């Protein structure tokens, strides 16, 4: 309960800062941030899903996993940076509503889950990628990581939409 009060207090102060005020009041800025946020999501989730599909076996005979990862993961990192910056800017404008929203723990929890999944994947099964780079069935652990990745990113988008409404 005290924790919730603290969040309400801090978020209230955050949205009263001149930065929060500028995000709300500058003509066209908010819709522009929303647009960039969507573009960032497209880059992040689009490339993540493409990698996930490859790990699930799509294009196994023609696309080496390492090639897919090398070309798409940097794109997803740029996407994440765009999403984080635009998201943080919009958050300052409406912090209290976000903190009070039941969708917020879902959204940030799902993004955290997706991040944790990435860390586990790269520190774990991905180290042996040379053995299943091309024309070979991907290990079950890699497929599981792909499934967790795809589902958590997509669910994060859904939670994000509920957060905005």
């Amino acid at each position, binding site marked *: 309960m005290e924790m919730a009060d603290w969040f309400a207090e801090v978020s209230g102060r955050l*949205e009263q800062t001149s930065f929060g*005020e500028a*995000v*709300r*009041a500058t*003509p066209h*800025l*908010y*819709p522009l941030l929303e647009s960039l946020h969507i573009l960032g999501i497209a880059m992040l989730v689009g490339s993540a*899903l493409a990698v*996930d*599909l490859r790990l*699930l*076996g*799509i*294009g*196994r*005979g*023609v696309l080496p996993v390492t090639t897919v990862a090398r070309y798409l993961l940097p794109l997803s990192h740029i996407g994440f940076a765009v999403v984080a910056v635009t998201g943080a800017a919009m958050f300052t*404008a*409406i912090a*209290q*509503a976000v903190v009070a*929203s*039941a*969708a917020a723990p879902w959204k940030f929890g799902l993004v955290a889950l997706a991040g944790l999944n990435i860390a586990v994947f790269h520190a774990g099964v991905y180290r042996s990628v040379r053995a299943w780079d091309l024309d070979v069935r991907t290990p079950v652990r890699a497929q599981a990581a792909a499934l967790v990745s*795809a*589902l958590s990113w*997509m*669910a994060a*988008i*859904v939670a994000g939409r*509920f*957060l*905005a*409404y």
Partner: protein
Amino acid sequence: MRDACNGLNNRGHHVLASRRRALLVGGGLAAAPLLALLTPSRAMAHHGWGTFDTRHAYFVAGIVTNVRWGNPHSEVALRVQRTDLPANWTQRELPPGGNERNFRLTMASARSYVGEHQELHLVLAGPSWMQRWGLNRRLEVGESIEAVGYLDADGGRDLRPVMFWLADGQGIWQQLTAFPQQPEPVQTPAR
């Protein structure tokens, strides 16, 4: 030569099958989050009327005690001072840009606010819509406004005005998307 052709055919088959699989798996994955949308939710508090009980409209008048103006929508705290319908209620005209039918329905459904909250949280349109509906400035703390609208179904502290009036009588429309339930006229004996 024949081997080469077979090889090509096999490869073609492989790619086709792979594409079909990509469509199936990708489509299946993409459909998963849609399931979440099938469950009704109360999260749509701001843009839509989904979380508001639009069967009964309530009138409040009071003093603005807090303003958070701007995108994506403005929010105002209103200290409730008066809840009786003004004497000229039936003569009030449709605010500029308003919807005639929803205006009539809401005016006919309007009743005194009887909830326990002394301060209501008003969810208002963003600045660009405010401008289209005739308000080119912010609401200020300390000014008096009247509002008629619908309460959130979950506690009733949020009031979403269909329209509100400034102290000088200027009416400002607020409704854009459809009501989930038809407002009921105040005289309905069923209530």
